[in-house]
């Protein structure tokens, strides 16, 4: 089963917000994304990646002043397979990002689901996020 592995927050001051969650819950800093879409801090609780970001574009249509939880990400086994599935369910494809190099640890595809909720899918995982569990058969071997 796919797994929720990423939560992104739109913040005015990612540095201060990240410090708060480190102190409040002992989350660990695992990266400093600095890209075309956003800058900020990646935290991890050992299972999920929590991205605290200052976005550079209005991905949600809520304006550049939007502050709050922005989108989530689902780790899947096969992005192409899930892309087809999401298309068939009426999700709207937004943008893609490449897999390797300095883009590793980020989203691979962004979609809008019902009511324009934005989510990512990825098969390589976010920085600090736990991989998908091994299939039961493989684990038993």
């Amino acid at each position, binding site marked *: *089963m*796919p*797994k*929720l592995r990423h*939560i992104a*927050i739109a*913040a*005015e*001051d990612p540095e*201060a*917000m990240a410090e*708060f*969650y480190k*102190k*409040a*819950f*002992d*989350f*660990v800093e695992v990266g400093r994304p600095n890209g075309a879409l956003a800058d900020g801090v990646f935290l991890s*609780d*050992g*299972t*999920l990646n*929590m991205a605290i970001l200052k976005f550079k574009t209005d991905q*949600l249509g*809520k304006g550049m002043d939007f*502050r*709050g*939880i*922005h*989108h*989530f990400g*689902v780790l*899947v086994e096969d992005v192409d397979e*899930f892309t087809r*599935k*999401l298309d068939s*369910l*009426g*999700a709207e494809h937004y943008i893609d990002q490449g897999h390797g190099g300095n883009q590793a640890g980020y989203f691979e595809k962004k979609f809008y*689901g*019902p*009511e*324009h*909720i934005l989510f990512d899918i990825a098969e390589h995982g976010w920085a600090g996020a736990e991989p998908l569990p091994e299939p039961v058969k493989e684990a038993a071997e």
Partner: protein
Amino acid sequence: MAKLRHLAIACKDPDAMAEFYVKAFDFEIVRSNDGPLAYGHHLSDGTIDLAILRFKSDQIGKGMDYTGLHHFGVLVDDLDAAAKQVAASGGKHYMDQSEPERVGGFETKMYGPEGILFDIAEHPWTGSAALPAKVKEAAE
């Protein structure tokens, strides 16, 4: 370490949205309820509770028409100790669960920087994974 175990979406039509995520990702509906704060469905991926809710009050100051990601929840070892740690870090208490015997949902809600709302609980959200230390204790 505390664990992110809950993510809540505010929407107009929780039934349709829940059906989408069940079909899209094989998430399972583990609880549906119509409570004082919201109507909706709780889905699980086996680890995280994804709550798809129509809220009945404006908890985040964005108005009743707001749709989008709403809050998240953190599973902690000790609710009182965690609430104190959050407050000492600058978090502000919002509200507590009005039925303390009710577990499987939020126990305390707090605001972090920039008005971000989050829950803390020491009992796992329905369908979500326990803290690793608790799983180890239970096995021993």
